[in-house]
C-alpha cells in the first residue's frame, strides 16, 4: 500500500508543479505574447516530455509566431503531442491543419479517417504498457499453474485470454511502430535544397517545403540523410535544417 502511495506521489508531483507554470504560459499566449509563451512551453516540455498539453500549446505558440521555421516547429510539437495523446481531437485537428500548410495531411490519402482514428486509438506507449501487462499476467498465471498442479486446470482459460491479450497488444504495438515514420524529423527551412550527397559540392536533387515530415536515415559530418515519405525521395540536408521529433 505504501509502495503504491509512493508511486502515485512520484508520478503526480511533477504534474501538480507544472500545472501552475502551464497556467502562467497560457496567460502569456492569451495576451498574444507568443514568443514568451513559446519559451515557457518549451521549458515545460523539456522538464516533462510526457505532458501532451505542453507540446500542443507549444505548437500553437509557434504557429502563431509565423516566422521562418515556426510552422515546422509547430508541426514537430503537434506530432509529439499526437504521439502522447492520439485520441485528443484538438491535437489531431491542429496537426492536420499545420500539415496541410506544408503540403501533407494527417490521414494518408486513400485511408478512411475512421480507420486512421481507430488505428491510432492508443498511443505506442499505451500499447507497449498493455503488451507488458499481458506478458506479466501470463507470467503470473503460468507461475501459479506450474507451481501447483491443482491450480493448473482452473487457470487454463485465464492463461488463454492473457495470451490473446498479450499477442494482440504486442502485435498492434509492433504494427504501429512499423507503420510510423522511423526516426522522424521536420524540415525547418522553406525550399530546402536536398542534395545527392553530404556536402555543397553535390548537386541539388530536389527541394522540400518547410514543415515536410521526413525520416532521418543517416548522419555524416553535420549532414543528415533524409527520406521524404510522400514522394519516396531521399537525399542530404544540413543537420541544422531538420528538427528531429
Amino acid at each position: 500500500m505504501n509502495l503504491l502511495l509512493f508511486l502515485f506521489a512520484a508520478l503526480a508531483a511533477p504534474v501538480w508543479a507544472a500545472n501552475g507554470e502551464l497556467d502562467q504560459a497560457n496567460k502569456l499566449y492569451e495576451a498574444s505574447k507568443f514568443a514568451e509563451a513559446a519559451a515557457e512551453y518549451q521549458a515545460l516540455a523539456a522538464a516533462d516530455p510526457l505532458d501532451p498539453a505542453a507540446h500542443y500549446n507549444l505548437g500553437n505558440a509557434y504557429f502563431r509566431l509565423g516566422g521562418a521555421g515556426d510552422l515546422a516547429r509547430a508541426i514537430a510539437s503537434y506530432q509529439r503531442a499526437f504521439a502522447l495523446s492520439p485520441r485528443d481531437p484538438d491535437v489531431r485537428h491542429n496537426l492536420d491543419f499545420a500539415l496541410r500548410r506544408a503540403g501533407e495531411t494527417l490521414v494518408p490519402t486513400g485511408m478512411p479517417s475512421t480507420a486512421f482514428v481507430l488505428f491510432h486509438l492508443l498511443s505506442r506507449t499505451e500499447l507497449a504498457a498493455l503488451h507488458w501487462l499481458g506478458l506479466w499476467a501470463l507470467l503470473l498465471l503460468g507461475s501459479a499453474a506450474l507451481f501447483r498442479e491443482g491450480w493448473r486446470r482452473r487457470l487454463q482459460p485465464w492463461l488463454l485470454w492473457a495470451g490473446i491479450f498479450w499477442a494482440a497488444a504486442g502485435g498492434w504495438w509492433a504494427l504501429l511502430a512499423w507503420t510510423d515514420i522511423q526516426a522522424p524529423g521536420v524540415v525547418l527551412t522553406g525550399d530546402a535544397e536536398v542534395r545527392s550527397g553530404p556536402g555543397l559540392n553535390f548537386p541539388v536533387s530536389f527541394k522540400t517545403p518547410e514543415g515536410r515530415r521526413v525520416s532521418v536515415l543517416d548522419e555524416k559530418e553535420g549532414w543528415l540523410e533524409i527520406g521524404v515519405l510522400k514522394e519516396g525521395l531521399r537525399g542530404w540536408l544540413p543537420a541544422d535544417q531538420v528538427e528531429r521529433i
Partner: protein
Amino acid sequence: MNGSLLALALLAQPTLAQDFNVSATVNRTQITLEEQVVLAVTVSGTSASLPEPKLPPIPNFNIHGAGQSHNFSFVNGVMTNSAEYRYVLVPRFPGRALIGSITATSGGTTRQTAPIEIAVLKHAPAQAAQPPSAPAPPPQQQPLPQAAAPPQRGAPGMPRNSSGFGPDLYVTAEVDKRNPYVNEQVLLTVRFFTAVQLMGNAEWRPPTTQGFLIEDIPPGQPYQAVEHGRRYSVSEIKMALFPAQAGELTIGPSSILCQVQQEMNVDPFSPDFFQRFFSSGLMQVQTKELKTKPIVLRALPTPVDGKPASFTGAVGRLRVSAEADKRSLKVGDALNLTVTVEGTGNLKTLGEPVLPETAEFKRYDTVSTVNLAKDGAGVRGSKVFKTVLVPRASGRLRIPAIPVSYFDPARREYATAETRPLEVEVAPGAAQAPAPAYVASSPQGGATITQLAQDIRHIHGPRRQGPVRWAAALSRSLWLHLLLSALFLLSLGSFLHQQRLLNDPAGARFRQALGKAEARLEQARGSPQEAAGLLSDALSDFLGDKLNCPRSGLTLKQAQGLLRSRFPKMPDGHLDQLKRLWEEIDLSRYAPGASGDAGHIIDGVGELLRALDEAMKR
C-alpha cells in the same frame, strides 16, 4: 458638351485582365508655336513593379521631362499602383504633329496607347484663345523656349540690324558647381542667345555624358538680355546631373539646331533674277548648329569620417516622417506604415530606411514610390516607402524612430533625420479568436452556418493526465519485469524438478537416501531411548533406497551381497564396518545396556553412510 474643348485625349487601352495598363493624355490638342503641350503618361496595375513608358520619336517637338508621381495603395490584400510621367512638348514647326504610340513592356507583355494628333498653328486664331481642356500644368512646369521673338525695333539699345556688336546667335553652358560630391546635384544651364528671327523653334540636342544620372528639367521662360551691346532673346535649358562616381567627369557638348532667314545676294542683272525673286523672294533659309564647350567636373567622394551606420549614399537635404494608417487594431491585423522621405537630391537612388528590429511586429516587404518635381532650382520631391506590419503582441506597442542619414553638401557634414516614434493600441484575441462564422437564413427558414475561415484550435489548460504517464511508468518498470520473470523461472524449475522425480522414483530414492538417513540420525541424537530403533531404520532405509529394494526384511547378508554385486569397487572395509555397526545396533536394540555409547554408534553410522554414498557415486 465641351468635350472637344477639353482637348483631353484619354487614349487608354481597354482594361484587360492583365497586370498593367498604360494611358496617355495631353492638356491641349491645338497650340501655337509659342505654346506648349503637357503630355501625361500613366502606367497602372496591381503589382508593385510597373514598367516605365517608352516615348516614340517625336521630331516635331522638343521633349522635356517634367517629373513623375506614384500612387500606391494596399487595401485588404489588394494592391493598386499607378505612376504618372509628365513631359513638356515644345513644338518646332507649325502643322499637324503626331505623337505615336507610347509603349510599356513588362514580362513579355506590351501595352501601348493610341497615337495623339496635335495641331500646331503659326499664330493664334483671331478669336479668343482656345481654353485649356485639362488642369493647368503644375507650377514647376515653366514655359518652354519659344521661337525667339526678334527684339523690338526701336527699343533702347537695340541694334538696328544684324551686323551689330555681338553675333546674331550663340549658345553658352555653365554648371553651378565644379567640385560636387558623388550623388550631389549639379545644375547644367544652357543658354541660347538669339538676336534674329528664327524659322520655327530650335532643336535641342542634349550633351553626351558618362558617369552621371540625369534628370532633365522643364525649360524656363525666355527673357531678354543685353549682351555685347546687343539685345538678345535668351532661352534657358537646364539639366540636373548627379555624379555616380568620384573622379574627373566630363559633360560633353550640347548643340542647338535652328533655321534663320538671311538676305540673298541677288544679282539684278542675272538672267534668272525674276525667276528667283518670284519663287523665294530676296531671303533665304539657313540651318545653323551651335555647340557648347565641354565641361569638366571633379566629383568628390563623401567623407569617411563621421559616416552614420544608416547612411546609404543620399546627398542633399532630407526630411523624414512616418505615419500608420491605423492606431488601434488587433493582433494579426495588418497595419500600413508609410515612411516619407522628402527634400532635394537624387531621390530615385535613395535606399530603403532601415526599420529597427522589433519582435512585436512581423514585417513584410517594403514597396517604394517616387514623386519628383522639377523647377529651375533642380529636382526635389519625395520617396514614399510603404511597409505592412502585423502586430504579434497586444498592448500599447511602439514603432521606434526610423533614421535616415544623408550628407549635406552645403554644410559638408553628415546629418540624420528621424521619424517620431509611433504608438499603436493592439487588442489581444484577434489571432486566437475562433474562426469567424457567418449565419445566414436557409430557404427552409432555419439557419445555416457558413464557415468563413479555418484556424487552429485553442491551447489546453491544465487537465487530468491521461494514461500515458502510467503507461510509460509501467513500460519502464524493470524491477517488475525481473521480479515476475524470476518468479516464473522459479516456478518452472520447481515444476521440472517435480516432473523429474515423478518420472524416476528409483533414482529419486537413490539421491534422497543420505538426506533421509541423516535426518533419522539427528532424530536419534535427540531421543536416546529410541536411538537404537531409529538407527536401525536409518541404516535399513538407506540401504533399501540405494539398492532399490524393499527395506523391510532386508538382512545384513542380503545387503552385503547386493552391495558387492551392484558396486564391485566398494571397499571391503566399508562392508566390514557395516557388519560391525549392524550387529552393534541389533545388540543395543535387543540387549539394552550391553551395547556401548549410543552417541558413538550414531557417529559411526553417520560416517559409514557418507562413506557408502561416496563409494556408490564412483
